[in-house]
């Protein structure tokens, strides 16, 4: 018997709104199943269950906002089955009293019609502004009216509408960034790295592969950062209260921009141990889910460092802001042809300007520059780190 | 009581429209009784106010009885009258039964306005009393309109409009005097100048305190009279009303009088000295007239006592009539906001 609690899905998350359950009482679940959908400032997140068992009791109803750590449901082992059968199960205990119950916005006419037609207003989709349900919605739900199409050609074309979720995400990012700016004394280091060898390596690799398994340059950057961090472990950790906790696992938070604005750092777990193909697949799943607005809790938790790569059309250089409680952030500008000195002669080479933003409470410039040096070495001999051999 | 002018014969018509020819002696007793009725009624009203039987505002006429008596003595029953909130005397003398006036002040359904008007808003269709009006100067334009209607319909009645020195400072006094004169309307303007507009003495409210002199600016005939002498008032009103009735033009008569009680029951009367009140009380219109009657043998003790008994009976009856009155049913609250359909 164990209690399934609202997980913390981000350092700054205090509460979440339970949007829907994917299972009901009495269902069997196993480790890794997506048991529910929760809405946080970061958007909709699927919640996984971490043990096998049977859901013996669901405590929180859809639409309720609960603090992190609140018991959402109780998962019993086989015995749970018997226990449930014995005692008469009443409606899941409504914990609404303390928290603000999410009021359903419904017009007076619709509420009366719903009663008359026996329609459960919780099942009705409101077509009004911010989801308000009106009489027509109820009649449609009761099948009395065919769905109506709305004429919208007079709405100004291309006018961007920021939905509630985007506003909340913007607020969450703003909060994290200002906290970081306020508390973390950043120091910045930069260097330019010749990418000729690594790009050529990538091209050869891709030629041997079908388009579906093709590698993007980002993969090389991720793997090389992972290995460089092995050499400079103090950049991979959390600043807790007043001391640095160096982390054993090495999870790189990779910044993914969303189409209508906003940003999610998906977490590439054990970036140093995983093979490039594994990372590619993980990255592919997570970015697709992020851009479809259905990120999972596991996708975005426990990154130990963050990597930002603006892509081949991005700016030349990026000076990032560290995500607390992490102590470092690696920023890659776009890979472009630039003039470089090579064996005393001027040469035009594809290169990238990489910056390291680091927390001066946790590390000093010397660690930072050692990191950039080893990063450069790995990028010159990518094949070495590609097959995981050190 | 200075008796300069020789008295004309008794009034041909009295307040209640009966052609009565009275000897001077009977006439004077009649005048005394009318004043005494007002005095006793107002004293009783003050007493009943103290006993919480009468509520709200109450403006007593004590001290000014000679004016109402003189005025109503001259008007006919068919003339119109528009008065103010200090109109109990006029209501009584215009023939509204004292019982229904008292019941109105009690707020009873048997009151002349079903208890809706109260002390300040006494109306009576038969007495052609178009109100007590509590807005200072509010009645003047209405009186002008009444006279306009009579002129248009060729009626020979006149409209008597009563107001105080306070109203003379209102814009509507100027507007109404101008209209009445401009359109030559039969309005008798009676100004009861009791020297105080609520709590402000006349010298603080009028640049020109000789109010009668205002009328010349509107080409309206005017005069003033000692408002404490009922015979003088009657004479003056008879002359004024004669002009209005014959020449069909307005006349402005200023009656200089004084009220012995505060402006109303709420008034602490601090704005004038006790001596000044005592000085004026020496010229009490009722008492000075009683002495005049006794001294000139127009009346003897018996006559006076008879009147006093009759009046106290009338007042007792009025009070018991009011006491036994009923309350208007709440259901009638919205009655008479608008006329029921079809009422012409």
């Amino acid at each position, binding site marked *: 018997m164990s209690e399934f609690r609202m997980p913390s899905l981000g350092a700054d998350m205090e509460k979440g709104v339970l949007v829907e359950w994917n299972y009901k009482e009495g269902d069997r679940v196993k480790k890794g199943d997506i048991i529910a959908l929760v809405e946080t400032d970061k958007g909709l997140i699927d919640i996984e269950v971490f043990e096998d068992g049977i859901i013996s009791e669901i405590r929180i109803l859809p639409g309720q906002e609960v603090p992190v750590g609140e018991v959402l449901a109780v998962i019993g082992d086989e015995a749970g089955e018997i226990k449930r059968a014995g005692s008469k199960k009443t409606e899941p205990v409504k914990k609404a009293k303390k928290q603000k119950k999410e009021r359903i916005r419904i017009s007076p006419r619709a509420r009366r019609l719903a009663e008359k037609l026996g329609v459960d207003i919780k099942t009705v989709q409101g077509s009004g502004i911010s989801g308000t349900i009106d009489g027509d919605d109820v009649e449609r739900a009761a099948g009395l009216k065919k769905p109506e199409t709305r004429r919208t050609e007079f709405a100004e074309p291309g006018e961007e509408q920021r939905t509630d979720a985007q506003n909340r995400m913007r607020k969450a990012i703003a909060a994290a960034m200002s906290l970081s700016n306020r508390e973390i004394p950043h120091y910045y280091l930069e260097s330019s790295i010749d990418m000729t060898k690594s790009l050529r390596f990538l091209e050869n690799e891709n030629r041997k592969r079908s*388009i579906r398994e*093709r590698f*993007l340059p*980002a993969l090389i950057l991720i793997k090389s950062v992972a290995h460089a961090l092995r050499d400079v472990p103090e950049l991979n950790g959390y600043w807790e209260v007043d001391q640095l906790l160096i982390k054993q696992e090495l999870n790189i938070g990779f910044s993914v921009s969303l189409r*209508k604005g906003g940003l999610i750092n998906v977490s590439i777990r054990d970036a140093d141990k995983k093979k490039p193909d594994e990372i590619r697949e993980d990255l*592919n799943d997570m*970015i697709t889910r992020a851009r479809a607005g259905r990120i999972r809790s596991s996708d975005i938790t426990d990154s130990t460092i963050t990597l930002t790569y603006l*892509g*081949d059309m991005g700016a030349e250089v990026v000076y990032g802001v560290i995500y607390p409680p992490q102590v470092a952030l690696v920023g890659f500008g776009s890979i472009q042809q630039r003039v470089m000195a090579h064996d005393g002669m001027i040469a035009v080479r594809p290169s990238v300007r990489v910056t390291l933003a680091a927390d001066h409470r946790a590390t000093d410039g010397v660690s930072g520059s050692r990191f950039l040096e080893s990063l450069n070495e790995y990028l010159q001999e990518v094949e070495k780190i590609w097959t995981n051999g050190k | 009581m200075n008796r300069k002018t020789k008295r004309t014969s008794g009034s041909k018509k009295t307040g209640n429209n009966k052609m009565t020819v009275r000897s001077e002696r009977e006439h004077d007793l009649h005048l005394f009784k009318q004043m005494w009725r007002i005095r006793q009624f107002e004293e009783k009203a003050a007493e009943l106010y103290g006993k919480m039987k009468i509520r709200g505002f109450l403006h007593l006429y004590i001290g000014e009885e000679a004016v109402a008596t003189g005025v109503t003595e001259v008007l006919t029953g068919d003339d119109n009258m528009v008065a103010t909130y200090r109109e109990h005397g006029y209501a009584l003398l215009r023939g509204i039964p004292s019982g229904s006036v008292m019941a109105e002040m009690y707020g009873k359904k048997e009151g002349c306005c079903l208890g809706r008007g109260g002390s300040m808003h006494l109306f009576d269709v038969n007495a052609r009393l178009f109100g007590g009006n509590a807005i200072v100067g509010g009645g003047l334009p209405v009186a002008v309109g009444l006279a306009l209607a009579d002129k248009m319909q060729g009626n020979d009645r006149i409209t008597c409009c009563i107001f105080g020195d306070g109203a003379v400072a209102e814009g509507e006094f100027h507007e109404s005097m101008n209209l009445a004169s401009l359109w030559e309307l039969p309005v008798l303007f009676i100004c009861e100048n009791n020297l105080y507009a609520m709590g402000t003495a006349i010298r603080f409210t009028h640049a020109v305190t000789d109010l009668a002199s205002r009328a010349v600016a509107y080409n309206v005939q005017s005069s003033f009279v000692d408002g404490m002498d009922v015979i003088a008032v009657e004479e003056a009103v008879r002359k004024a009303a004669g002009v209005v009735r014959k020449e069909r033009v307005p006349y402005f008569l200023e009656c200089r009088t004084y009220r012995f009680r505060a402006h109303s029951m709420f008034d602490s009367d601090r704005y004038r000295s006790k001596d000044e009140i005592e000085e004026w009380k020496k010229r009490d219109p009722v008492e000075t007239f009683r002495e005049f009657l006794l001294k000139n043998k127009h009346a003897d003790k018996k006559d006076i006592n008879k009147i006093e008994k009759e009046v106290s009976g009338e007042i007792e009856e009025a009070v018991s009539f009011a006491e036994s009155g009923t309350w208007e049913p709440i259901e009638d609250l919205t009655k008479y906001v608008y006329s029921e359909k079809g009422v012409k």
Partner: protein
Amino acid sequence: MDERQIKETVFRELRRVAPEADLNQLGPSENIRETLDIDSFDYLNFLIALNNDLGIEIPESDYDQFTTLEDIVLYISSRIN
């Protein structure tokens, strides 16, 4: 497969990657990635999708022939027909 069908397929796959973009505003010679703000990750998915639908291989070396709508349609029609 005529040009219209190719264009339709291209639009369908582009819409999956950039749902809110207004494709009929896209000029034939405009750089698709810049106009529709598509990064390398989404663009690769776009190419993979074309590969699935049309069964053609698009090596990295040919990327430069894949910048505008005109190029893409030309490139595909030459490979298929």
